[in-house]
């Protein structure tokens, strides 16, 4: 039977606050956690961070005290949800190990969304971003193997391949070329709004994470790699936020945020293999159903508009973490040479020498060593080859095939 969160009863708001010990979750065991359970934790943390930040921005743009009270109350609970989720990550999992988890999320979540996306124009955007995050996973995996040292295969569990994507060095482009065509909240398939918001949240939290922890390593190569890839995450946030309908009201956006939280907790509850996490997703779904009801109430009161008009009639197919190796290889083979020019994706080789892409590349790379390249060179020097995990055969792109992998 189909599930519609608008027709369900959630946990009453006054019963949603939890005490410190309830929030201080027992962390997962980093050696035995299912890699996709780790991914789900990382995603839901990003979603809850966005929930809190969006609510803060809404409050900062309103002089209505009663509205601020309502937002503050729900936000306090969203903040507790964020803690309960993020505190699942164990202290003995290094920031670099967690980083591998972030990039596995970026690959397999984006791959899922691209395949489920009903709008072909938006699907192309996700595929474009996918190849860039796929490359980040490879660069960080080499850093991990070199500095900790540890094989990233143990973290991704063989579910995601690790090899070059669109080389990070080529991903840096002028900010004007990161903007894409927006969807229409009232005309596009509602699933497109959910997808854009989900990927934007995931990329936003990846950006936040690298901004914060990127200066924690001592090794210059690690600090350099985090700052370089952190700048690409900024590009990705610019790209994905430009997909959203900027004409939406604060209340409409709040409703979409809350529905999306329901959708993701519902999805993860369906697919979670860890019973303890499954129970947490279920608990949070019960809370989010109430948050959604309150957001819909606000939209009806303030906008005098019907929230059902911007939401799916029933819950879409659950967002599922699963291997996407064949799909990623296909996208690699077809699109690795692309870059962006204005709103379009075009072969890099088609850009004239005078294009702003080349000026931007010159500005950020200059004559210095580029960390995303240096990490591979240094790995080769120390270990006699680069680190890859190519379980499905050689790289599908001729010039990216491995020569000296360790």
């Amino acid at each position, binding site marked *: 039977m189909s599930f519609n969160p608008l027709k369900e009863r959630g946990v009453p708001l006054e019963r949603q606050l939890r005490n410190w010990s309830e929030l201080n979750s027992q962390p997962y065991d980093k050696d035995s956690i299912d890699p996709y359970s780790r991914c789900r934790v990382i995603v839901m943390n990003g979603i809850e961070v966005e929930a809190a930040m969006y609510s803060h921005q809404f409050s900062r743009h309103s002089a209505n005290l009663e509205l601020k009270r309502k937002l503050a109350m729900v936000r306090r609970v969203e903040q507790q949800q964020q803690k309960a989720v993020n505190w699942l990550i164990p202290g003995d999992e290094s920031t670099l190990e967690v980083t591998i988890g972030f990039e596995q999320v970026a690959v397999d979540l984006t791959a899922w969304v691209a395949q489920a996306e009903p709008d072909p*124009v938006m699907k192309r955007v996700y595929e474009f971003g996918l190849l860039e995050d796929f490359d980040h996973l490879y660069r960080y995996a080499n850093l991990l193997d070199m500095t900790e040292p540890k094989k990233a295969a143990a973290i991704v569990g063989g579910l995601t391949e690790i090899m070059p994507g669109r080389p990070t060095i080529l991903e840096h482009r002028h900010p004007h070329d990161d903007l894409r*065509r927006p969807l*229409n909240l*009232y*005309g*596009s398939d509602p699933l497109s709004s959910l997808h854009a918001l989900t990927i934007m949240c995931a990329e936003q939290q990846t950006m936040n994470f690298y901004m914060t922890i990127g200066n924690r390593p001592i090794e210059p190569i690690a600090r350099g790699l985090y700052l370089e890839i952190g700048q690409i995450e900024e590009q990705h946030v610019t790209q994905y936020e430009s997909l959203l309908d*900027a*004409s939406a*009201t604060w209340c409409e956006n709040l409703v979409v945020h809350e529905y999306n939280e329901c959708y993701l907790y519902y999805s993860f509850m369906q697919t979670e293999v860890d019973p303890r996490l499954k129970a947490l997703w279920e608990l949070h779904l019960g809370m989010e159903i109430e948050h959604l009801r309150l957001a819909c109430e606000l939209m009806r009161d303030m906008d*005098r*508009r*019907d929230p*059902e*008009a*911007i939401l799916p009639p029933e819950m879409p197919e659950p967002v599922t973490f699963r291997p996407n190796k064949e799909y990623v290889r296909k996208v690699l083979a077809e699109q690795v040479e692309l870059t962006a*020019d*204005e*709103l379009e994706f075009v072969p890099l080789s088609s850009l004239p020498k005078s294009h702003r892409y080349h000026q931007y590349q010159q500005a950020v790379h200059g004559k210095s060593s580029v960390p995303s390249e240096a990490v591979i060179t240094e790995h080769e020097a120390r270990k006699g080859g680069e680190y890859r995990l190519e379980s499905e055969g050689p790289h599908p792109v001729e010039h990216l095939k491995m020569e000296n992998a360790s």
Partner: protein
Amino acid sequence: MTSRAKTKSHSATEKPKSSKTRKARIFELLKAEHAEALGMIEEICENGETMEDAERLEKFDEFRAALMAHSQAEARAFYAPLKEAASEPALVLEADVEHIVVQRLLEDLSSPKLDAERWMARATVVMELLEHHIEEEEGELFDLAESECDEETLAKMADDFEAEKERLTEIVA
């Protein structure tokens, strides 16, 4: 350009619209804005070739802002409640898609990279799509709204449309 634009265009006062007399205010509001938008793009298509780039782009910016505010307000205040009320919403969904197609062409036209000839070709397509869209909307879609929505709903559509238009005009400017 494009003799096609010249031969196919209509002046703002002789649009291919339904001749039915309709009572509800929402229809008058939408028709007036349709005529205004069509008049703006017709002027660009008819005279754009002889305009300086800056003048053509300035006129296009005015047109884009007016059309975006109109279509977003229309989607919220007219299409959304009509979808809800209509037993068969296929016509409204079709109109949604036409909005999206026009919006994408408007984004193309905002690109500084298009040369004048290709720019004018796209502008002509926008005009033709708009003519088609308006003809269907003022005919079949207005008929649908008249038959499926009561007076109160139609009155609310008009109020909502005006409020949304005012809000969106600031956002898309």
